[in-house]
Structures are given as C-alpha cells and as structure tokens.
C-alpha cells in the first residue's frame, strides 16, 4: 500500500537524520540534520491526518525555532571550534547504559504488545481544530499567550542586561 510505503520511508528519514544530528561534528551540520528530521516530521503529521499541524510544523519549527538556533550558532562563534570526540569514560558509559536499558524496554514493550489495527486515516482539518481551540480550550489559549508574553519580556530583559554590561 502506498500510504504504508511513504510512512515507513519518511519515518526512516526522520530517525536517521536525528541520529546523524547526534553524531554531527559541527553545530551547523547538526542543525541541518534536525531541520531534515522536522520536515520529515511535517510529512508524518500530514500522513496522520493533520494538514494544519503539518503546516504549523514547517512554519513554527523550521521557520522560527531552527532559524533562531542557526542565528545563535553564528553568534556563538569560537575561533577554534572543538571537534567532538566521544570519550569512552564514565561520563559516556553511564548515560549510554541508561539509554540502552530504555531502548530495550521500548523494544520489549512493542514486541509483546498487541497489534491494534486502526480504522482508516481521517483528515482532521483546521476548522475542527479551531472550533475546539477557541471554544473548549479558550482559557488555555489565553494562558499560552500569557506565557509567550512572559517569555518575550524575559528575553528582552536578559538581552538588555547584556547590552549594559
């Protein structure tokens, strides 16, 4: 089935590019891999029946968040960027052990769980989302707006302190 093929290929692209970001040497390459992963994620959202989320993923994550990260990479310029060498010491092996345990848990969970077949994918358009968003969840939308305002104020305050010092 075509849907399954596109889904698996996109999932593989997303996971592989995220894995490449884990092992990227320079921050800019890591950012590019994360962007690739997020664009693949937008396609996955579309395949899961959320065209509105897919558009928001591209415009918010790729358009805003990653541009912010790339902008910060240009400002955090070190004359000699340190090349990432994974050292096989205690600081590397203990988190690695925890991650491997978590990976084993995920594998066990999905290997033993029942395979639930879903009904066919239904596209849930922007209208249904907006009706819920500005009807039932209006208070949370207001709270999120307040949170964004607080973040904006905090960023302005912190950056002003930088200018003064």
């Amino acid at each position, binding site marked *: 089935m075509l849907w399954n093929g596109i889904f698996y290929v996109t999932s593989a692209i997303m996971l592989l590019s995220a894995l490449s970001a884990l092992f990227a040497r320079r921050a800019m390459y890591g950012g590019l891999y994360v962007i690739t992963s997020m664009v693949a994620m937008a396609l996955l959202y579309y395949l899961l029946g959320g065209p509105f989320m897919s558009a928001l993923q591209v415009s918010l994550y790729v358009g805003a968040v990653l541009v912010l990260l790339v902008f910060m990479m240009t400002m*955090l310029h070190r004359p000699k960027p340190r090349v990432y060498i994974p050292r096989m010491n205690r600081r590397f092996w203990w988190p690695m052990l925890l991650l491997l345990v978590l990976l084993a848990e995920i594998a066990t969970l999905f290997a033993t769980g029942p395979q639930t077949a879903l009904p066919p994918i239904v596209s849930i358009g922007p209208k249904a989302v907006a009706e819920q968003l500005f009807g039932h969840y209006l208070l949370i939308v207001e709270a999120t707006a307040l949170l*964004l305002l607080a973040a904006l104020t905090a960023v302005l305050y912190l950056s002003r302190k930088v200018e003064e010092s």
Partner: protein
Amino acid sequence: MVYEPTLMTGALLFLIGLAMVLLRRELLFVLMGIEVMFNGAGLTAAAAGQYWQDSVGQILVLFLMTITGAELAVALVLVYLAFRRLKVTELSEIRSLRDEPTLPEESRP
C-alpha cells in the same frame, strides 16, 4: 494502518533526543536534543488523536509547539549570556557554582 509503528517511531525519536541531551557537551546540541524530544512527544500525541479520530491530539501538538518556542527563546538567551559573560559554549565548562574541592590557604578556618 497499524498503530504500533507510529508510537515506536515517536519513542525512538524521543530516545535519540535524550541521547543528544545526555551524551553531547555543547549547549546548542543539548537544546536541539530537547527539540527532538518534543518532536517525539508530538508524534505520539498526533497518533493518539488519530486513534480516537479527534482533534484533541492536534491541539496538544499545537500547545507543545508554542511552549517549545517560549522555552527555546529563553534558553537561547541564557546560552548567549553564558557565552558573553563566561566565554563558554559547553556544559562541562559551566562550573561557577561548583564547590571547589581544595580551598586556598588563607580562606581556611
């Protein structure tokens, strides 16, 4: 469509993000790892919304994106402040608040 591959992809993406947070030393990579973790959680929410064929999953992803944006803006300014004031870009170099194991002679009681 089968339900498990979507959830498994989300879990693996979360795991890769967690590995980026735990194994990398650079502050920017840690922030990118947090973004990847948020993406994994969002994929799980989207799959759950499609499972119940409801728009609540998309609304959860929407709030997740907004809160990620707010968090990242503040975190990036803090990274920038750490670079401007302390000239560091790596986690292991930020140790201003660490208890030094050996005190200088004159400060000992």
